[in-house]
Each structure stands twice: as structure tokens, then as C-alpha cells.
């Protein structure tokens, strides 16, 4: 276990270096000058002001120097300030503020997806090739091919416009309005996100389950006279969920940075929404900060998933 953790941490370091460096280069390569964005389109621009701002932001220094400077403060927890909204820190005022929103969306999406995907996948494997399997497979195929903003628009139309059960957009924080009000605004966007995930998960569960059902231990469990449901869920499911655990981890990480469209559609003040704004405004440090944060979270989550394998399969524990 100690060795696994050590290699993991080493790999984490390497990944973080690559991620920060690449995103730094790429944000610098974005067309458009941040100084223009800061000054605004109509502002009078004399060379003196431009130079002053460049100097202030350190933009006059060469790229490697800027990277090292940024990295130096980043490891101390200082991700800098927004160029546009001066005084707004990237860590405290942006990430800490908005992460809970995005994380909740991603988490709820994953939970909804898993809750739907496991029974669907198990049913498909159990009734492989029969009408139950064919119907669910077709449904899954549809869910997989519909982009989540279309699902989102449909959900808004159905539950907000037609039925008027839920608000169409906006976000209620738990701290302001309480849990119920929060869930009312969270359920539609997270369902929209969940549908694609559900499709991916249930396919994995189905194919892994089909393989597991060929195993001898499934036949021996059956020969004990246990009910099909017991054999499926208490014997076959756990050995069939290793790929599921992997993809849940990967996709949770991906959702942290991938809720952009849904957050925009539902006007949710999460990380993705802010990221889009920052990109439009060439607010380089905000882009940089959010990107790095998402990458770190992504790697950390996957490390946790790898450790989770040992829970799912005791044979890995000694390794």
C-alpha cells in the first residue's frame, strides 16, 4: 500500500507539472492581448498606460520566467488575481466560491447515473439478446447520442415550462435557501448531465456482467439454489464493477471541467460558467487557476479510485 501511494504521488507531481506548464503556454497563445481586455475597447490607449499595465502584471517578462513566478506563488496557495475584476483572487474568490456548485452538480449527476445504470446494465446482461436487453440497449443508445444541452432544454421545457414543477434556471445555495430549494435548482441540470453518463456506465456494467456470468462461480452459486437476483447482485455485480469504478472516477473528474455548457444553459454560477467568462475576457490567471485546479482534482480522484480497487477486489490488496 505504501509503495502504491509513493508511486502515485510521484506520478501526481509529474502530471501536475505537465498540466500547469501546458495550460500556461496555451493561455499565453490565446489570440488577443489581455491588456486590451483590461482597458476595454473604447478606452484611450497610449503606450505609457499599456506598458504600465504590462509591467504591473509581469507580462513584459519572457514566458518561462512568468511560469516559474506563477508556479512559485501557486505552490504557496496563491493563484493570483483576476486581471479584469481587480482584487478578486483566483483561489478564494473564484474557486472556493464556485467549486461547491460544480462539484455538487457533478456528484449528483454521477449518483443519478450509477443508480440508473446498474439495474439497466444488470438487466441487459441477465436477459442478453431478449426484448428486455434490446429495449434497454436501444434506450441507452439514444441517451448516448443526445448531447446534454439538448436533454437540458427538453427537461426545462417539460418540468419548468409545461409542468411548472421546477425552476428553469438559476441556482439556490444551500447556505442561503436551504437544501430543498437547492435541490430544486440542481435536479434538472444534474439529470441532464447524468443521462450520457448513465448510458456509458450501463454499457460497461452490461458487458462486464456478461463476462462475469460466464464464470464458474456464478454457476456454483446457482447450483446452491440461490435466487437469480441474489446471484446477480450479491455474487456477480462486485466482480463486474471494476471498470465502472474506473470510469466513474474519470468521468467525475471530467465533469468538474465539463459542466460548462449545462452551467451556461441553466445560468448556474459554477466553475464552468466562470471559465467561459474568463476565456472571453482573456482573464489569463483565472483560466489558468481553474484549469490547474480541475486537473489536480482529476488526478486526485483517479488516485482515490485506484485505491478503491482494493476494496472491490481483495486479491489486489497485497500487491
Amino acid at each position, binding site marked *: 500500500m505504501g509503495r502504491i501511494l509513493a508511486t502515485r504521488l510521484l506520478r501526481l507531481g509529474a502530471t501536475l507539472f505537465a498540466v500547469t506548464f501546458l495550460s500556461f503556454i496555451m493561455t499565453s497563445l490565446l489570440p488577443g492581448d489581455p491588456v486590451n481586455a483590461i482597458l476595454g475597447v473604447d478606452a484611450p490607449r497610449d503606450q505609457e498606460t499599456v506598458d504600465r499595465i504590462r509591467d504591473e502584471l509581469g507580462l513584459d517578462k519572457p514566458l518561462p520566467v512568468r511560469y516559474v513566478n506563477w508556479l512559485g506563488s501557486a505552490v504557496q496557495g496563491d493563484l493570483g488575481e483576476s486581471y479584469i475584476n481587480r482584487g478578486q483572487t483566483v483561489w478564494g474568490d473564484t474557486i472556493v466560491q464556485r467549486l461547491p456548485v460544480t462539484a455538487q452538480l457533478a456528484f449528483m449527476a454521477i449518483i443519478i447515473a450509477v443508480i440508473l445504470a446498474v439495474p439497466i446494465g444488470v438487466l441487459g446482461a441477465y436477459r442478453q439478446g431478449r426484448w428486455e436487453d434490446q429495449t434497454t440497449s436501444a434506450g441507452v443508445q439514444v441517451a448516448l447520442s443526445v448531447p446534454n444541452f439538448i436533454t437540458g432544454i427538453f427537461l426545462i421545457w417539460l418540468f419548468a415550462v409545461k409542468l411548472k414543477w421546477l425552476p428553469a434556471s438559476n441556482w439556490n445555495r444551500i447556505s442561503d435557501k436551504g437544501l430543498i430549494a437547492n435541490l430544486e435548482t440542481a435536479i434538472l441540470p444534474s439529470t441532464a448531465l447524468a443521462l450520457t453518463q448513465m448510458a456509458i456506465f450501463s454499457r460497461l456494467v452490461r458487458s462486464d456482467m456478461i463476462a462475469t456470468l460466464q464464470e464458474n462461480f456464478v454457476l*456454483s452459486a446457482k447450483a446452491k*439454489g440461490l435466487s437469480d437476483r441474489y446471484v446477480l447482485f450479491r455474487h456477480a455485480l462486485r466482480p463486474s464493477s471494476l471498470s465502472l469504478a474506473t470510469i466513474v472516477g474519470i468521468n467525475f473528474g471530467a465533469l468538474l471541467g465539463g459542466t460548462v455548457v449545462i452551467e451556461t444553459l441553466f445560468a448556474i454560477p459554477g466553475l464552468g460558467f466562470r471559465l467561459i467568462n474568463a476565456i472571453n475576457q482573456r482573464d489569463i490567471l483565472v483560466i489558468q487557476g481553474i484549469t490547474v485546479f480541475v486537473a489536480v482534482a482529476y488526478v486526485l480522484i483517479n488516485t482515490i479510485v485506484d485505491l478503491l480497487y482494493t476494496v*472491490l*477486489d*481483495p*486479491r489486489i490488496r497485497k500487491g
Partner: protein
Amino acid sequence: MTVVGSDTERLTRADNAEPLLVVKDLKTHFKIDAGIVKAVDGVSFELERGKTLGIVGESGSGKTVLSRSVMRLNIASNVINTGSIRYDGVELIDKSSKQMQKLWGVEMAMVFQDPMTSLNPVVRVGRQLTEHLRYHLGVGKAESRANAIELLRSVKIPEPESRIDNYPHEMSGGMRQRVCIAIALACGPKMLFADEPTTALDVTVQHQILNLLATQQQDRFMTMIMVTHDLGVVAGRTDEIAVMYAGKVVEKAPTPSLFADMRHPYTQALLWSIPKVSQPKHTRLSAIAGRPPDLINPPSGCSFSPRCPYAQDKCREEEPPLVAASTPGHEFACWYPVGSPENQEAYDRNLAAGVAVTLAAEGRITATEELTSDIIAADLINDVIDISNDEVGN
């Protein structure tokens, strides 16, 4: 909808004392894209309470499918099961999987071939031992733990109190097979199927497992079907042996008569393929020439004829029926049975004609008695090994 049978059914049963298991003309055919695989093709046998039947044959002879069919474990949409299986007076052939679930584990249980794969790798041994006990008999959690420990003790696993919390990968192969046996015994079944229970194990462990099965069978007065490819395994441990080839029983006899007077060339070939202690070093193993037949399009006539050193034109044209031999209960299906003058003639004729199979058979030892005594000798040696290895290897 009675499943095992009502009380009246049990009463009538006790009166006429029917054998526990009566199988008549059982067929198991698999529909696959290439055609219909006749894995079991018209098998009949009876098995008295407390007796052991050995089913012997090479891979692909249908012996495993037969045992699973009798237990009705292979119910699926592409499987056609016909014939009759009367278990304890109740017909099983038309039962659904759901109805059979009430018999599985409780009335009939199976020990599988490979203990490495027939235990769930991610479930602790304790739960695997007793989950069906709890499911069928409603035994409570604490009680089932005590039961599990008792079961492990009965199959001679040391320190059962701690072993119960092991995962299968923490045990040796022999121990796992002991666990599998304990699982099969948990609900006290009347009928035990052992499907090649020792094939995946070390030779020394094999013997321990066979002994364990035998003592458990006696203690619990179980009826047993032991499936194996090894005549040596069933030699001293069964009351009756059925030799299977291409989905059919080709010879069936009480164990002593089979070894004293085997009539079918396939039985003889199986016996010859066991290496003998008395043979000189580096004697070539005598394998059976050719391959098991294609079960979709079996050869015409006797299905063993393409591999048989005695085969004549008649064998290739007409399928021999099962006929009674001189000893009661001994049946075989062969036109030129081993030990008859016709058989010798057929052999000489084939040899003279230069038939390849016959030439391959040339040079084999022919004295059957000598071979049987070899098996017994080998058994004795195993016993000695067994005593020195009495402690379960880990």
C-alpha cells in the same frame, strides 16, 4: 404446485422403494449456429439410495453435461432436454429453473471441477459456505457462522474459526476444494454430484479429497454421482460405473464386473491410457488414437468405430444397442466385444489389412487383470503418500 412432493407422494414412495434417481432416455441437445450438438443422446440409468455411480469418459464425451442435465442446471433457451429424470419419485424434466431452485443445494448439490474458479474471489469463505443455508432454511446470522465453522471442521480444515474470514485466494487448491465440498454439504443434500472433483488438484491432494468425499458420503448416507475421465479415480470408490462416449453410455456395470470383464473397446482403451507402475521407465503413454467425435454430425454406426482397433464394416453401418453381459447389471454396446472370439478375429483381420488404428494398438499390454492390480497398487501407494501428507498443505 408442489415442488419436491406432497406428503402423500412421499408415502407411496416409501412403499415401492423406488431408486432415488431414475433417468430414462435423457437427451440434452444444444442448438448452435452450426447445428444441433447432441451432447447427451439417450442415457438411462438408475441409482439406489446411498450408492455411488461413476461416469467415465474423455473430454467431450458428454459426462459433465449429463451430470448438469440430471441436476437440471443447464436450462436455457437453446438447450433441448427430453426424456425422464425421476428424483425421489418426482419428475424433474419439465421443471422450470425457478422450481429447481428449491431442490438445488437442499436436495442435490454439486462439487465442481476447478476449486480455483468455482468460488467467488471477492466473497469471504464464510458467506459462501452458509448463504444458501440462510436462504433456504432461514438460519440466522450468528447460527450460520457457527454452522460454517462446523462445516469447515467436518472437511478437516485447520483453524476453521479464522479460515472462515478468508477470501478464496488465501487458501490452497486442496483447501478450496474442501470448502467447495463443505458448501455442497451445507444444507444436507441427499444427492451429491462431483464433477471431476480432483482433476485440478495435485496428485497427493486428489487422494485426500476422494477420501473426504467417501467418508462424508457414508456419514451422511448420500447418493453420489462422480464424474471423471480417470478410471483409476472411480476404481475403488464407486458401486457402479457408466462409460460414456459421444453422449451415450457404451458400457455400464457394477464396478467389480467392469474391471474383471470389460467388454467395450473404449473402456479398454481408457484403462490402457493410465500409466502403469509395473511398466518399464520411459514407456510411451498409450493414448487413444484420433479425437472425440463431432457431436453435431456423429459418425454413422458405432460412434467409436473411427478410433476402434476392432472396427469392422458392420460397426460403421449399424449402431450397436446396449445388451446385457453375463454378469447381472453389466451392459455394453459393441458388435465385437472385448474378450470374445469375434473380437480376436476382427483384430487379426484389421492387423492383416494394415488398419492404422490397429497398428497403433499393437504392442499394448493386454492382460486386464494385471492392469487392475496395478491400479490397486497405485491406490495403496497413494494411501502411503496420504498418511505422510495428512496435514493439509498450504
